[in-house]
């Protein structure tokens, strides 16, 4: 089978999976929906591997293959085809997406077992994976936009999966609205670029770009900035990030898949794919880098004070994506994508572990109530530690190598980028703090009663299910989480997926050790053949110096966390008292939600109210509709007065009519 056939198969399997599961959602017994969906994604992963080998079999100059299924319309000058681009970048993304998705599907089979919406979940999840694969395999802007929009829709469906929870539905709407804003940016950006290149195909656009656009030409910068708006909305960068913490309302595997490994990386992929444009419009690239840097710092500071376990991990995601955006904006393409891959591993692992702990707590998500689960959840503890160490950047875990790959590149480019690099180290320090704050608070210290019960083999089960955010009483019927809770220690499927991810998080970094091997960089090179920044790399010594600094920073962060939470308990309370103002500011997420509410939501609501009262009620209801009905009524009233019922009036009317006609004929005949 040819490589592009494998490419189409990558898309076909999840699509077939979602269609079959959704059409039969009432009939699939037990966990068969889950296994069916997993099989679909596993087959997609296998096809991605097939495509990988197909690509590697080609010579170096022939590694970008476009395959078009049919042409949508070429008559208006837009050459929109349903086409996929099989090249190293898209296969890399497809492998990462489908691989991690398979493991998350396996995890979900167990995690959601008692949920009434089981089959619906897997239909949505397959649909999501299909959309994400469509996005990364797209060969032109049109298919990209289609995939982008589908991913947004899938994320909405999955975030508000437990749709009878008002917090979940509000979160879903918030995510969708911000995503739509990004969609608008994406489409407008495409148009700005299309205006000059007159083609939507990627390869053609990239070939034309240096000839059509001059350095930092206004249109291109505007177009790239709009593309960045799309990327930031999808990847939850400041200021379009407010949806990501709220998106934790979805089931934990959803958070693992969408908000750690795949959807939020779509922005990174976009910038990496559009690199020829960004290399011409360097202003836009700089904006991307600065925003990425700001995000990683802001998110890290917020994560330090959050009390909800999943939200800490969410802000951590935001911060790590900031690294990736920063990386691909300035030209560290392979580094950024490498970090994307490793981040997918350890972040998904962390979310899965969080799911296990939350189940052990009977649905409770607050760190304040957790503690001492080390003995009760040993497997989860080990996985969580591995994930946390990888996230903090401890050697020899994958996160260390990938994060410092980015920071090393920044240092190499020098100039203003060095400042960004230092900010990256600061972020790494904070990462160590918040990650291990989370681990120490959840696993160390005196065990809470749920942990004690679990040590005796009894999994806590609350009779009255409540919403973890608001505490309101719920039900376990459809639209709410199921009554059972599943922890990793008791379920082989969860353990299987977590083990595989843990393994990947440990050894995943070994493919790109500076000076030893650079598998990823060399694999991705054909995609970035036209880039002038790609091959820029410093000496191996500089890289190793950066790596050592990174390791030291990580150790520093972990030890600070150790000191606060383990060595001297009570320090955190004391610090809270001393820095209460800062704490409140950080706890309220830098007041971004309030700011957006003030700037955007209130004016929109005012506009809506104005529209309803003045325009709709006054103008249309009153003047147009009311006026028309009033006119008709007046006319009918006037005509009604003629229906007197008096015979003689009718006869008079007839007579008048006849004389009138006679007069007319007389006049016209003379």
């Amino acid at each position, binding site marked *: 089978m040819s490589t592009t056939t494998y490419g189409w198969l990558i898309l076909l399997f999840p699509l077939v999976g979602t269609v079959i599961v959704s059409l039969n959602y009432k009939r699939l017994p037990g966990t068969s929906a889950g296994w069916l969906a997993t099989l679909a994604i596993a087959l997609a992963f296998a096809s991605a591997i097939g495509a990988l080998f197909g690509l590697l079999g080609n010579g170096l100059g022939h590694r970008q293959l476009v395959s078009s299924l049919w042409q949508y319309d070429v008559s208006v000058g837009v050459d929109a085809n349903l086409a996929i681009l099989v090249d190293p970048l898209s296969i890399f993304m497809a492998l990462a997406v489908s691989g991690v998705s398979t493991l998350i599907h396996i995890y979900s089979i167990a995690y959601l077992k008692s949920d009434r919406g089981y089959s619906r979940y897997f239909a949505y999840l397959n649909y999501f994976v299909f959309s994400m694969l469509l996005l990364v395999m797209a060969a032109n802007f049109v298919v990209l936009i289609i995939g982008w929009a589908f991913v947004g829709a899938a994320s909405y469906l999955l975030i508000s999966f437990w749709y009878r929870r008002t917090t979940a539905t509000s979160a879903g709407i918030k995510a969708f609205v911000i995503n739509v804003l990004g969609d608008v940016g994406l489409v407008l950006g495409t148009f700005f670029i299309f205006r000059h290149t007159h083609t939507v195909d990627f390869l053609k656009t990239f070939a034309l770009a240096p000839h059509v656009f001059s350095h930092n030409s206004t249109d291109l910068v505007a177009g790239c900035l709009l593309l960045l708006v799309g990327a930031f909305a999808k990847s939850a960068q400041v200021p379009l990030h407010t949806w990501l913490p709220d998106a934790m309302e979805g089931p934990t595997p959803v958070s693992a898949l969408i908000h750690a490994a795949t959807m939020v990386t779509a922005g990174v992929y976009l910038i990496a794919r559009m690199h020829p444009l960004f290399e011409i419009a360097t202003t836009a690239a700089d904006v991307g880098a600065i925003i990425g840097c700001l995000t990683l710092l802001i998110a890290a500071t917020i994560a330090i004070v959050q009390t909800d376990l999943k939200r800490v991990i969410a802000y951590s995601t935001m911060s790590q994506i900031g690294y990736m955006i920063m990386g691909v904006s300035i030209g560290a393409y392979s580094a950024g994508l490498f970090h994307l891959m490793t981040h997918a591993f350890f972040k998904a692992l962390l979310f899965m572990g969080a799911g296990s702990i939350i189940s052990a707590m009977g649905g409770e998500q607050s760190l304040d109530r957790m503690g001492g689960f080390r003995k009760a959840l040993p497997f989860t503890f080990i996985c969580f530690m591995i994930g946390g160490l990888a996230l903090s950047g401890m050697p020899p875990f994958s996160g260390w190598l990938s994060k410092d790959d980015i920071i090393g590149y920044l240092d190499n480019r020098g100039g203003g980028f060095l400042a960004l690099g230092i900010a990256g180290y600061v972020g790494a320090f904070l990462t160590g703090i918040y990650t291990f704050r989370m681990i120490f608070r959840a696993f160390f210290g005196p065990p809470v009663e749920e942990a004690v019960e679990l040590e005796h083999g009894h999994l806590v089960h609350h009779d009255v299910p409540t919403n973890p955010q608001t505490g309101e009483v719920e039900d376990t019927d459809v639209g709410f989480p199921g009554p059972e809770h599943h922890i990793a220690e008791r379920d082989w499927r969860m353990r299987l997926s977590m083990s595989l991810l843990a393994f990947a998080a440990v050894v995943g970094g070994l493919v790109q050790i500076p000076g030893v091997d650079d598998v990823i960089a060399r694999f991705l090179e054909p995609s970035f053949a036209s880039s002038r920044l790609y091959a820029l790399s410093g000496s191996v010594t500089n890289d190793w110096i950066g790596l050592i600094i990174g390791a030291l920073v990580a150790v520093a962060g972990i030890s600070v966390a150790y000191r606060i939470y383990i060595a001297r308990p009570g320090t955190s309370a004391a610090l809270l008292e001393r820095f209460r103002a800062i704490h409140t500011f950080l706890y309220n997420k830098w007041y971004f939600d309030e700011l957006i509410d003030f700037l955007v939501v209130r004016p929109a609501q005012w506009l809506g109210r104005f529209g309803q009262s003045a325009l709709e009620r006054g103008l249309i209801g009153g003047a147009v509709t009311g006026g028309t009905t009033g006119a008709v009524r007046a006319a009918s009233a006037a005509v009604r007065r003629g229906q007197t019922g*008096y015979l003689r009036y009718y006869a*008079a009317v007839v*007579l008048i009519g*006849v004389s009138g006609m*006679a007069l007319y004929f007389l006049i016209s005949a003379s």
Partner: protein
Amino acid sequence: MVFSAILFFIAAIGAIVGAVAVVMLRNPFYSVLALVCHLIALAALFLLLRAEFVAAAQVVVYAGAVMVLYVFVVAYVGGADEPLHRHGAALKVLGPVFGVALAVELCIAMLGTALKGISGHGAPYVPGFGTPKEIGTQFLTTYLFPFEVASLLLMVAAVGAVLLARRRRGLEGTTEGEQTTFRVARPVLTGTMHESTGIRGGGGTVSESEYESQREPVGSHTGARGSSGDGRSEGGW
């Protein structure tokens, strides 16, 4: 020639006077008699036009049968002389005005140069122009269809007259039970004007009380409905 002219004027004046008398006389009985005179004058005019059969039919059928029927009904019904109601006040003035206007128009049309189809001299007289033989031949050959339709129309009118004038409770064998079998449920607003003009009163299927009220004499509602009917239809809009 002169004799026919004199006869024409006598007949014409007779006809016009008769017509005026019909309109002006207050007692309806006198109006009927005036119409009889008018019809006879008209028959004379027909004779002057050599349409003998039509003239005879006019006298026999119209003046003889139709007017006798009128006399019977006027004697039965009566109808006192009454002045015009306040409703007709405007028409008392406007009516004659429009009538005169129409007359003037028609005269202008005919006597002016507009109508060229009127020649001063008619066609030469063909013997047998208005004889019964000619008319009969035409009725049974060229105009057979209108003849048959006219007879059908007469039958329909006779049946209709019988139906209209019978007493509702006078037919033998009709009991209360038979009459009420005609009660059928009707959907809203597909029924009587009564229902639709008084939406709040009518509407819904025809119920017992609705049907009962329909069997009352219609006129007893007219006085009360005269002004309130309008008000209710506005409100139920």
